[in-house]
């Protein structure tokens, strides 16, 4: 079936370095993606989204890249900080009222 998956379950990054979290999707019809951040003991929180008519979208210290050819997207975090430590999910909200979440990548920031 259709799925949204991540390549790496855990990513360790030195504080101040850039982080890249990857996500692969299989539904060719998907035209909108959302990245969520889930801190320990909290619910997922919206970070940034991107529509399929874009290749790149930038936020504050975060950038999402979308490659529709290989059905891949990535979340880049610049100058990673301890507060960035969390589990990151890519999500495909293409289904009516039904969002498909990827398996999540845990980002550990090393001080």
């Amino acid at each position, binding site marked *: 079936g259709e799925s949204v998956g991540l390549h790496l379950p855990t990513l360790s990054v030195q504080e101040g370095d850039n982080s890249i979290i990857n996500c692969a999707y299989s539904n060719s019809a998907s*035209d*909108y993606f*959302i990245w*969520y951040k*889930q801190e320990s*003991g*909290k*619910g*997922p*929180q*919206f970070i940034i*989204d991107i529509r399929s008519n874009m290749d790149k979208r930038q936020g504050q210290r975060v950038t999402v890249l979308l490659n529709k050819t290989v059905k891949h997207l990535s979340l880049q975090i610049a100058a990673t900080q301890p507060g960035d430590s969390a*589990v990151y*999910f890519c*999500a495909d*909200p*293409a*289904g*009516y*009222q*039904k*969002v498909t*979440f990827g*398996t*999540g990548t*845990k980002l550990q920031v090393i001080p």
Partner: protein
Amino acid sequence: DTAVSQTPKYLVTQMGNDKSIKCEQNLGHDTMYWYKQDSKKFLKIMFSYNNKELIINETVPNRFSPKSPDKAHLNLHINSLELGDSAVYFCASSHRGARNEKLFFGSGTQLSVL
């Protein structure tokens, strides 16, 4: 002010018991959801309600019964709890429940069935 609030935060109970989790949102959203997150952090939708009407029921055992008294509240009652029900349950809401909607999540209820 908390946008989506759910209680309790932690719930520890014995197998076979019945328990409820409550959820309220003050965002004025029309659609509310229950998600289950397992120990590997996988998030799976259980139910979706739009204006108090059940829209999605994702093959959840009928021991789970959601109830929406109004569009700002969606409670989850679980009968005859089983060990496999142990997980974190998240309530969420969105504006219309249409495609391409952001979800707003509560902080979760960690259910431990002993």
